[in-house]
């Protein structure tokens, strides 16, 4: 089943084009990482998917038009926006009570058992909690909703590594199953690359790379070349080159440039690039232009 389908999705803020006609398709059961520099249009794309902003073009989420059917959609979709948005005045118990009151798919007992594992007390107000605890609370609420699609926009921004680790552990262990779909936008690629099934790079309102993690393994190769072989290696036309500890790291896109693997192995150590390195190579290869600063 297709969970998200967009064709020619476009959104402009005045003269600033945030989304420049993107096409995307997310199937059920995938965990999509949406990665892009600041102002690339990630949040705008997610807001359009969540029915928070009007757009041009075609967009269907779980078969619905998010802009005109937001509240019906929110029965099956839940999200954590890019900023901590739990109201500061609310008590933990009130937050659970309210969500239980209005959401048909919320399992309060489950949320309470999540919270029991934390140091959050039911009587505390959100403003008394630390930033990490607020995220834990929000996650406890969201993970207790039996939704088909979960959208997380920079969910762990500003959290320390321990909270981030816990966050993604509970996401995978307590929530994810193959019926659910998760879309995560993030800057913290290194910690997340092992949980994604699909990857999408977005830059200046356009999708510059969209593929599954398996495809990345078969498509991209990195070779660490010693200086004396660097010139020879460069004749193979790598898409990107960087220097580390006296070696040249050359990145090849085998789809565009079918280099022989054997030949690369003879030049140096061959491995699959990390997402962060791939991101820098792909985004860095885009035609130079001032980065947009829109949301």
């Amino acid at each position, binding site marked *: 089943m297709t969970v998200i389908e967009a064709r020619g999705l476009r959104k402009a803020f005045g003269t600033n084009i945030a989304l420049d006609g993107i096409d995307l398709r997310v199937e059920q059961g995938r965990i999509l990482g949406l990665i892009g520099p600041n102002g690339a249009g990630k949040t705008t794309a997610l807001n359009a998917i*969540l029915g928070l902003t009007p757009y041009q073009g075609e967009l269907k989420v779980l078969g619905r038009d998010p802009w005109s059917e*937001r509240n019906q959609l929110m029965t099956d979709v839940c999200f954590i926006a890019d900023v901590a948005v739990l109201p500061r005045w609310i008590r933990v118990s009130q937050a659970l009570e309210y969500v239980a009151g209005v959401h048909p798919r919320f399992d309060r007992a489950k949320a309470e058992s999540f919270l029991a594992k934390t140091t959050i007390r039911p009587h505390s107000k959100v403003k008394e909690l630390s930033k990490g605890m607020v995220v834990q609370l929000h996650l406890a609420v969201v993970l207790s909703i039996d939704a088909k699609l979960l959208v997380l926009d920079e969910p762990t921004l500003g959290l320390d590594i321990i909270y981030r680790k816990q966050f993604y552990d509970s996401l995978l262990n307590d929530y994810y199953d193959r019926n659910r779909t998760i879309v995560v936008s993030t800057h913290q690629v290194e910690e997340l690359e092992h949980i994604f099934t699909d990857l999408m790079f977005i830059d200046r309102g356009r999708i510059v790379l969209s593929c599954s993690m398996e495809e990345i393994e078969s498509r991209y190769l990195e070779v660490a070349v010693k200086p004396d072989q660097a010139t020879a290696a460069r004749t193979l036309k790598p898409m990107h080159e960087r220097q580390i500890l006296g070696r040249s790291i050359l990145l090849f896109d085998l789809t565009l440039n079918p280099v022989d693997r054997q030949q690369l192995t003879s030049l140096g150590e061959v491995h699959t690039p*990390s997402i962060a390195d791939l991101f820098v190579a792909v985004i860095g290869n885009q035609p130079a232009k001032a980065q947009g600063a829109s949301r």
Partner: protein
Amino acid sequence: MSTQPNAVPESSLQAKEIAPRVVSPAQILYWSIRRELWENPSIYMAPLIAGVIFLFGFFLSMISLRHHHMHGALPLDAAHGHDVFASRYEFAGALIMGTALIVGIFYSLDALYGERRDRTIFFWKSLPVSDLMTVLSKLAIPLVVLPLLSFAITIATQFVMLLLSSVILSGSGVNIGDLWRDASFLHVSLVLLYHLLTVHGLWYAPIYGWLLLVSAWAPRAPFLFAFLPPFVIYGVEKLAFNTSYFLNLIQNRLLGPGNAMAPHAVAPDFMATLIPHHFFDTPGLWAGVAVAAVFILGAVRLRRNQGPI
């Protein structure tokens, strides 16, 4: 480098298949209103405090009344006593109602502005509650909740007043039976309830609708945006045409469509004022309700479009 996410046993997939509960619109409205009361305890605290302060003042006045009465400085005959107490009961009602009015104004101005300012609108919009339901729940606070609350608090205050005066004045020579007879709670409270629900619920609806509209739209300072335009319109009309229709319109709206509905208009046949058609025939009532509906629909549209500030 990429690993598949942790496999989940098939059994746990099936275990999660639970049929969603059905949440009725009435339930959503109920929880939305409770949410407003959690966020804004001033909705009930302010009228309560007004009642308590009034009772304290009343307590002091009773002490002094007893003192004067017992020393013959101010003999309290039955007719005079009736007036004294009737005006105090009335004053208690007016004080609590006025407090509720002020709370309602400030509440409405912040209702749709605050959630944009603190960005919690993202959280509220992540739940299956429509913009219409949200705005209606926020409208229900000044139109229904505050009038009913101030009614309950007024009745409670007046009852405590009666008890206080009975206890303090007993043995001072004042006839306690007269106090109870004059209080005539049932009649007065029916008029009060009628006044609260009609004037505060229907007649003022366009005012609260306007405040909510501004609250949904204002990029900053909703108070200014709510109160400046009426002044400008009045000024322009006065300068251009030397007329004051707009001012009269606002005055008429604020002061109510005449004394027929005021709680103190307890005429000898005061039950007549309760006959609904009297009020519901008032010119301007339904026009006002229609204007309120337009403002409210505007606020709903704005809430859908507006993001955080």
